[in-house]
């Protein structure tokens, strides 16, 4: 159970993991997520489900802190400590007509299942992906297949437009592109900007919020976010919300709550050199 079947660092910091978990594989719908734990001491981290096969599912994990670092240290064949899911409400997948999908860093992986599902419903898909530089772009071929129009933005201009999803989005709308529905997944800052751009044009916008989560079944309220004035739980009511109703300022502040704790944890936990363990001492004796 929870065995890592395959693991590869697609681009720096983004790891593609294929994990064996029959329940998740059978039941997961696009837009849902799982909660992973690398070991008994690790945190419970939410990950969007990208693809599902017979009894395995695929995620694109962004290596960001101590727990994702532990998962990044693991090798195919090792077992995760816990995999719970599929959690959260599936994304809204209907026929809208022209659909815009925006994805940034881990979001590039996360919008792929949405793109596939929306394409199957007959929508015309326009995809914009962003990354800091050209060497950080992945899943490009697969996304191109399911997208009618495909744009790339990099913040150092090494590929495509010099800028972010919002830069391309602004340009597309200015020269006449019309959208009936928009979905954005990626860093909170990008999702906020894109929602602010689509708001005046009243394009229905859905965003998948990446709040801090703890249990994932709605019993702790750690992932609460104000949407349209009401407090909602991202783990049971979300993760997909209406981009124009989300109180972005509050969300960003809540995400910064444990910034210093993350630093303390990364700083003081006794790090162990990776490859050396395997080459010299067989499996890690942790």
């Amino acid at each position, binding site marked *: 159970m929870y065995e890592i079947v395959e693991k590869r660092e697609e681009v720096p910091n983004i790891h593609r993991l294929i994990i064996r978990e029959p329940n998740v594989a059978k039941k997961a719908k696009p837009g849902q997520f799982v909660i992973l734990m690398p070991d008994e001491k690790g945190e419970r981290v939410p990950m969007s489900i990208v693809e599902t096969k017979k009894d395995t599912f695929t995620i694109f994990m962004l*290596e960001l802190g101590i727990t994702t670092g532990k998962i990044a240290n693991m090798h195919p064949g090792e077992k995760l400590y816990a995999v719970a899911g599929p959690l959260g409400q599936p994304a809204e997948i209907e026929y809208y007509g022209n659909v815009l999908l925006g994805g940034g860093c881990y979001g590039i992986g996360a919008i792929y299942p949405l793109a596939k599902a929306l394409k199957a419903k007959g929508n015309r898909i326009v995809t914009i992906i962003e990354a800091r530089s050209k060497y950080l772009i992945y899943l490009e071929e697969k996304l191109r297949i399911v997208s009618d129009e495909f744009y790339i933005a990099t913040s150092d201009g*090494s590929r495509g437009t010099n800028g972010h999803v919002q830069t391309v989005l602004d340009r597309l709308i200015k020269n006449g592109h019309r959208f009936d529905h928009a979905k954005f997944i990626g860093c*909170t800052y990008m999702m906020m900007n894109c929602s602010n751009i689509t708001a005046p044009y009243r394009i229905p916008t859905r965003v998948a919020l990446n709040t801090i989560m703890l249990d994932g079944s709605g019993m702790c309220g750690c992932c609460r976010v104000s949407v349209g004035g009401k407090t909602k739980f991202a783990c049971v009511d979300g993760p997909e919300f209406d981009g124009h109703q989300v109180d972005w300022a509050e969300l960003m502040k809540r995400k910064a709550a444990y910034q210093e704790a993350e*630093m303390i944890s990364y700083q003081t936990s*006794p790090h162990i*050199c990776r490859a050396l363990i395997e*080459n010299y001492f067989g499996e890690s004796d942790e």
Partner: protein
Amino acid sequence: MLVIDGKKVPFVEGKTILEIARENNIHIPTLCAHERLPSFGACRLCMIKVHGVPGFMNACTTPAKDGMVITTNNLEIKKLRRAIFELILSEHPSSCMICAQAEHCDKFNSGIMKAGVITGCNTCPNKDMCEVRAIAEELNFKTIRFPIFYKELPIERNDPFFDRDYNLCIHCGRCVRVCQQVEGAHILVFTKRGHDTKIGTSFEKPHIETDCKFCGQCIDVCPTGALSARGQKWYQEPDDRVRTTCMLCNKGCRFEMDVKWGRIVAVRPDPDYKTLKTGICVKGRFCLPTFFNAVDRIRFPRFLQNFKLYPTNWDEIGSHVAELLEAYPPSKIALYLTNFLTDESDYVFRKFAEMMEITNIYTTVEDLTQIPKKGIKVLWTTEGLPGLKNFKTLEHLIFQEVFPSEGYELADVVLPAAAFTEQFGTYYTQRGPMPIQKVVKAPDLALEDWKIVCKIAQELDLSGLNYLDVDEIEQEMGRVNYKQKVRPVDEYYLKYRGTPIAEKVPDFKILLEYRKNRAKPW
């Protein structure tokens, strides 16, 4: 007399133009120059114009000559310097430096400081100390006209203590110079050539397979985040920086320690302590923070009840120990003094023993063999000791230690001791008596060894042992001219008091395990 930018500066024989400029605080941007290292001339940022000499010269290697007239900052030089710096940025993951949304992103994207691979300033631990970034801000860089050639080198994480991300390396060669000319180890060298030139070990061997001493000097001089100590890089600005002497062995190295969140987070050689030409050893440099921050420090005095050691406060434990000591004749009581006591604690312990007429004072494991001979009943040890189980005559064990090391499970009374970074004092080393500085607060109720003895002394209402602080003891030691000797603990001693350092620091265990058949592991 030289004239730099119209300012007359005294000529000094044997100095380079850069040194003279620096002494007269004329700013010339540099990346590969470093005051402790011979000049190298690789980054070419310190280009200057010497009148009468065609073309430009670089300030860091050109010996100054009397009568030189130098311009450091005319338009032509600025243009050249910007062009050269733009080339450096084109090989560095500098997307954050030139991204229009950098400040916003910085404010909002809180958590992305600790990525595995550094893909931009925002995910770089070195962000606030990075010299490349400082120059980017100084030259106010907003665009790079060249395509970015990210080297896509794998991160080298297969060595204990080091993380090496050569994608950030700007080939300034400082680490190569410090490793060759200062440390004399010749581990880090330039390899390959042309654009694939890379700094590394010969044949890309991991450092553990070379003779690298893990002194960490290369990390100190690295201007970017390329070389970093895995456990010592994420704290940005320290809250405090304290200098003290190391007590892990009797060499007496001087440290400068960074403190953050009330913990020791980084250790480096004391920059002003010039006599220490080479760096400090791996124990002090890398193991110390992880070691003293380990989770299982002894924090509370404990006494045994119902097969379990329950925490309690100093008053109650004091009376316990007092009862124990009064219940037995001095001949049946033994003291084990570890080599890791500060001079003051050692003195106070011996004075206490004298007052209590305790003669059995042991300092080596061999001394323990006297326990059965003398029928010792109570042992007060300040260091975890092996094989206490098979001393049948022992009835009570007073365990005064920093960690629950060997013998803890047999203890009747546990007394939490403070580590040498948590107290003031002096320590007699090969370099004579060296000051010990308090760097951080001791955890919870842990006390200095001499304070513990004083507390017990009060309970036994012995007079003459209630010192306020270390200076008082020092004066008394001076008056009595108490002769302290160098403790028999050499650089390759692997324990601190009773705890093997490798037990708390996994990387150190791997280092020792790998190099176990070498005479000297570092």
